[in-house]
């Protein structure tokens, strides 16, 4: 058993990406990974808070890190945005002592202090590095032979460089797909942006980017996509119909969290991994292979 502090993030915990949380926990149990949720955590601040009030945003992130530090374990999050925020916070706190002092001054108002020792990792990193492809492969009950999966990394799991996978041409998700018995499709845009939160404020910008992703995935033969980030999943899944409308296309590519695909291969219950939460249904595609 491996033990981690678990930070689900807002979207996966009570937001639109609950299925991510469920499936993450379910496959972790299968792989002997203990994800103990950080108690009383708060929103990491994500990109928007940092763009409104930088210091406040860093303080929000650091409160979680300070809480996690007390437990002394590595912290794992399934959300790419949380991952980037925490790692950036750690980098700057540890690289700029006066800044750290300032953040700690604010934290002291809540009787907290942070030394800077919590290593924050993405769930994908934990599962592929610590647990490993062989262990994952050994748990597969329903190999997804023939299923063509476009591994979509998005941006913030590999950028900026926090040492996990290549920032331009990552491989971990591709290998994971292979170890589940499925076939990763060539997907040149696999680490390009889905539009992020600008889907709310600048929908056209985002739809354009989503369109390119769907086009690239489908033209390379993908039957579904998998993602490692709640926002990516939301954009690709929910806005697919709007892309179809705007660009007069007819994509019906299911978009799963990578943990959901693992759950399918592990033979877990559909409800345990929240398959019904997908807007574009996966059942048709799965029916061909499982």
């Amino acid at each position, binding site marked *: 058993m491996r033990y981690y502090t678990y930070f689900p993030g*807002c*979207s996966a*915990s*009570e937001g*639109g*990406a*609950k299925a991510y949380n469920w499936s993450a926990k379910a496959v972790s149990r299968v792989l002997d990974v203990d994800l103990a949720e950080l108690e*009383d*955590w*708060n*929103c990491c601040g*994500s*990109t*928007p*808070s*940092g*763009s*409104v*009030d*930088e*210091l*406040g*945003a*860093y*303080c*929000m992130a650091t*409160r979680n890190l300070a809480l996690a530090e007390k437990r002394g374990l590595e912290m794992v999050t399934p959300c790419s945005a949380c991952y*980037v925020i925490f790692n950036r916070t750690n980098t700057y706190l540890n690289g*700029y002592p006066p*800044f750290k002092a*300032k*953040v700690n*001054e*604010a934290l*002291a*108002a*809540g*009787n*907290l202090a942070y030394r800077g020792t919590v290593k924050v990792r993405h769930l994908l990193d934990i599962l592929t590095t610590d647990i490993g492809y062989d262990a994952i492969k050994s748990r597969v009950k329903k190999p997804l032979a023939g299923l063509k999966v476009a591994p979509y990394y998005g*941006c*913030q799991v590999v*950028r*900026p*460089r926090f040492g996990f996978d290549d*920032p331009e041409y990552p491989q971990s998700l591709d290998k994971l797909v292979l170890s589940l018995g499925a076939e990763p499709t060539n997907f040149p845009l696999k680490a*390009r*942006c889905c*539009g*992020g*939160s*600008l889907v*709310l*404020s*600048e929908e056209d*910008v985002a739809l354009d*980017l989503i369109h390119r992703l769907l086009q690239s995935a489908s033209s390379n033969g993908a039957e579904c996509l998998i993602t490692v980030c709640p926002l990516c999943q939301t954009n690709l899944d*929910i806005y697919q119909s*709007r892309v179809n409308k705007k660009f007069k296309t007819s994509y019906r590519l299911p978009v799963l969290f990578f943990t959901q695909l693992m759950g399918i291969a592990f033979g877990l219950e559909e409800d345990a991994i929240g398959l*019904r939460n997908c*807007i574009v249904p996966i059942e048709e595609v799965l029916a061909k292979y499982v």
Partner: protein
Amino acid sequence: MQLKTRSETFIEEICDIPGGEGIKRCIQCGTCTASCPNADKMDHTPAELIAMARAGMRREVLSSNAMWYCLSCYLCTVRCPRGIKQTGLMHAFESLAMRDGVSYAGSFTPTMYRSFNHFACALGSMPEFGFMTWFYMLSNPLRAWKMIPIALELFRHGRLSIKARRLTPEGTKQLRAILEKAETLGGVT
């Protein structure tokens, strides 16, 4: 055109931000622009924005629309041959613009960010339904109307909860105390 509003201290202001000091090293190669998915939408390209900042054009930089189109995809940051953290700079420009009240009015992004931060600070958690409703109402109620089909779809698939996750009362109090204190410390620098 003559430059009248040169701010001699703008570059120092940026350098004091953690990760901001790299701006001095820029060689204007344009890699950031060439890597940016949204550069075409910006009134000034990312590289130009850096050049303007270095020229002390504080007002022009902060009232630009460029940073509000930043997707935080970090492509510019990993490709920059000088190790400049452009994405971080964009965030810094955004927060300075917010603080100065000069943020670009032609995009809903500032409003969206503010709404998000409002909920994140107040609740310590992000109630997606509340946040989006609030944002659409603030930006343009008509847009909210257009979102209804999506909201219904989400709801049908169990992905939209009216109820939001709450911190414990102690947790909420602690977060508030920290943020209030942070408020008094006057920004990151």
